[in-house]
């Protein structure tokens, strides 16, 4: 079964137009976690990844640049409070 895990070295995803370097980051992360994704499922993985990359960048950009770096958080939520 063809796979895209790091067990078989670096994945080669061609023709998706995604950010190849970032995608390699996902491949490396999956390999590190010992998670194997069949190649025939990679189209949707890449689509999801592209969306999530944008969203991560948006969040990190806002927190770093909009004066929000001082805000705190708590891990648990209760009473509707954050």
């Amino acid at each position, binding site marked *: 079964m063809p796979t895209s895990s790091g067990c078989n070295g670096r994945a080669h995803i061609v023709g998706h137009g995604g950010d190849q370097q970032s995608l390699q980051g996902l491949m490396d992360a999956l390999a590190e976690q010992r998670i194997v994704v069949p190649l025939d499922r990679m189209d949707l993985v890449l689509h999801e990844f592209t969306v999530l990359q944008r969203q991560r960048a948006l969040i990190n950009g806002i927190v770093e640049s909009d004066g929000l770096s001082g805000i705190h958080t708590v891990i648990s939520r209760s*009473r509707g409070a954050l």
Partner: protein
Amino acid sequence: MSRELSISEMARALRSGAVKSEQLVRAALDRINACDTRIHAFTQLNREYALNEARACDLRRREQGADNLPVLHGIPVAVKDIYDLAGQPTTCHSKLRLDHIAEQDAGSVQRLKDAGAIVLGKLATHEFALGGPSFDLPFPPARNPWSLRHIPGGSSSGSGAAVAAGYTRLALGSCTGGSIRIPAAWCGVVGLKPTYGRVSRHGVFPLAWTLDHCGPLARSVEDTAIGLQVLAGHDPRDPGSADEPVDDYCSTLDIGVRGLRIGVARSRFQHLAQTSAEFLRGFDRASQWLAQEQANMVEVCLPDDEECVAVGRVILAAESFALHAKDLRSRPLDYGHITLSRLVQGAAVSSEDYLNALRLRRELAARMDTVFERCDVVLTAVTLDTAPAFTSAGTVHGWPAQAYAFNVTGHPAISVPIGLSSQGLPMAVQIVGRYFDEALVLRVARAIEKLSGWEAQPLPDLES
């Protein structure tokens, strides 16, 4: 019979002896038998259990009288197949969980049973309340009773479909990014995502701990209020459960909206390509109805939806990955295609991403609280168009919906129908309230239900 009576009417008919619980359950089972080979709302139907429980309810009523029986005594309900029912599988619509048997009832299921409800069975969901309408899972995807070619929305797809099809007046769903309100909107039923912590999640398979909410989908706002009254309350077994007083949700339902300040968040979606002109006209009609009832309508600007969705998705990716990492390593091919593609994303989310998302969430929640300094509730969209067809549904990212924000901030939000589109598919609006102010959210939703005439809307024709 049960599909034509509201919950309060059923309760009255049971108390007076005009109807028996066994009749209500048989009517529900007959409807399910007749229609569910096409709708696929149920993944598991407990026919004999339900009939035996109904007979036991009827016997109890005969022997003890009906005066002091709980509100749902002898009334059929159903639950999404991520809620534990003791002795039965909680499959989460997944091959990975076909052999799982629950040892005890989920906290919310226990509350339903304590209130006398009869649980007919388990309802379809997107796999692990995450995937999407899929054909590579152990059960077929639920279909929309208003049009079998269209999706019912999700992930509480079976809950929306079961209520819309008239199998039951009340079903339990769960909501991490819109999974109660979106199927409610597209199936023409009422769906309430309560305040974070209002309803117990004990015994409900999690998707993302800090975004997950449990709540009811029901045929009417009154049915929803009755359901919430039963479900709401502190459960120490759920670490996110709130120890807050529970209001009386039914007594204020029909007070109306006169004098209320209702924020209108039209600017949030009016220029989006996904927003259909027909929905926009429906939204404006709903706004006008409330204004005609002498509510004070004020324009408000909510936190940016794109930011809310980004925060929600990064948190979901991290938390769901933590839940599924072990199975992703050992059984990746047992997940459906869509679910697998979404779950593996968490491998690439860093602690910086996750914690920045939590920090921004706090900011977004504070911004939402500021909105409530200017108004009592907010009127906004939940879905921006009618349900997509199965052939064009794609992934949930492409759905015309705006529901994620209030899972992120934790505010209570309800979807209430406003009518049918020219294609005969339901449309809805969303009412959002302050933390733990479900009573007011329900009251405004009830006003819209009356003003829209939806309470007189017959069930979809499933005979043809």
